[in-house]
């Protein structure tokens, strides 16, 4: 196995251009090391951990910018994230064990593109973008287009994720991330639901609603039809229940050792309803009623 520790992004992407599919990027290594032990070793390992200046969280022009090498634990303990992006904070908080959070990076979570990746549904709902470096230059890839399938993103074999740009949601909005797993945070999510609700001035209607679903389709998805059903409408119980049913119908879960597809769909419905109710209450101080 060839092994490299590039010291710059330029060096890293030129290695990826040279080795193509034969190369594997490693960041924290919590996914890659397990694959190397139990599946196979790549022909070339490109360890990007020694590239300086890729671990940071900063606010700039209405966005939080998060370096790809930022550990999940840094996100969880960042007052800036807690205050400005509580939805992302919640997913970092519910992410595996402390030991894993100290090692795993957000860039690795995104590039792994696991449908159950904890931060993905929240980032999708927050309409984040991936800032990716290729040998020809940089591209801004919206999360709504980034994921192609399990383990597959627009980065392909030659792109390197440099930064995640998260526009700050409106101050009147409130988000909720709910994870369903047998053993709590330690376990991979059976279903993850991220909801962001923005009421209109009167506090009766929803000006904007965004719903992201994890672990119930080949990629994390937005429940667009459920969102549409609520946008501009009065948040009444029957409508919220209806939207939750629509969200469940938009999911296409598989059956595996964690649960059956049917069970997952039930959970999507329940968590979507709960997420909408909790977000609505948090932002308006009122229950979804009648």
């Amino acid at each position, binding site marked *: *196995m*060839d*092994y490299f*520790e590039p010291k710059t992004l330029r060096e890293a992407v030129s290695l990826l251009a040279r080795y193509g599919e034969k190369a594997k990027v*490693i960041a*924290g*290594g*919590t996914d890659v*090391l*397990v694959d*190397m*032990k*139990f599946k196979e*070793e790549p022909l070339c*390992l490109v*360890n990007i*951990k020694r590239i300086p200046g890729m671990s940071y969280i900063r606010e700039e022009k209405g966005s939080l910018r998060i370096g790809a090498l930022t550990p999940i*634990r840094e996100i969880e303990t960042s007052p800036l994230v807690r205050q400005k992006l509580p939805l992302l904070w919640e997913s970092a908080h519910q992410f*595996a*064990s*402390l*030991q*894993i959070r*100290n*090692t795993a990076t957000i860039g690795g979570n995104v590039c792994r593109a696991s449908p159950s990746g904890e931060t993905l549904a929240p980032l999708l709902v927050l309409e984040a973008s991936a800032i990716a470096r290729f040998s020809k230059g940089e591209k801004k890839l919206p999360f709504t287009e980034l994921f192609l399938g399990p383990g597959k993103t627009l980065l392909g074999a030659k792109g390197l994720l440099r930064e995640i740009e998260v526009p700050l949601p409106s101050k009147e909005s409130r988000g909720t991330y709910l994870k369903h797993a047998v053993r*709590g*945070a*330690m376990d991979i999510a059976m279903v993850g639901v991220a909801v962001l609700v923005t009421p209109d001035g009167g506090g009766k209607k929803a000006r904007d609603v965004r719903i992201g679903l994890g672990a119930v389709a080949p990629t994390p998805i937005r429940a667009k039809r459920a969102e549409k059903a609520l946008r501009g409408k009065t948040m009444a119980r029957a409508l919220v229940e209806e939207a939750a049913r629509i969200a469940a119908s938009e999911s296409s879960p598989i059956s595996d050792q964690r649960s059956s597809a049917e069970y997952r769909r039930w959970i999507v419905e329940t968590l979507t309803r709960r997420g909408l109710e909790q977000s609505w209450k948090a932002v308006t101080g009122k229950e979804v009623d009648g």
Partner: protein
Amino acid sequence: MSLNIRLVVNGTRHRAKIEPALSLLDFLRDTLGYKGVKICCNTGECGACTILFDGKPVNSCVVLAADAAGAEVVTVEGLAEGDRLHPVQQAFIDTGAVQCGYCTPGFIISVKALLDRTRNPTAEEIEEAVSGNICRCTGYTKIVDAIQIAARQLQGPTGLTSKARS
């Protein structure tokens, strides 16, 4: 292909030639002989291989040995001072938080890290600190007792009174 790394383990400098795919766990146990670092699941789930990496608890089985170049590592072997056990070790013995003992080094490192962060952990912080450590023997109750005793020990008498006053 192999690479040369230098690192500090429990205050001792080491220099070694390693394969790039080697995990930090295999490096510590097999190359350097720190057998206090236990191997169990080898996939980051159980916490038996927990060490401090620049002060933070990590599962050494899912960290590259190469990433430890230039780092400071602490294993359970590094906690006692001569014959005097670290208060966390002593508390585990005193409360009977050890049965087969296989999980113990990992727990002790996680608890040491917790008590380095705070001398006055809440129940929630205790749970968070050891939720990545699995014990198949004790049922955890005695481990939580041990953590509370160790915390009190480390606070010392002044720590307690200042807390009582505040």
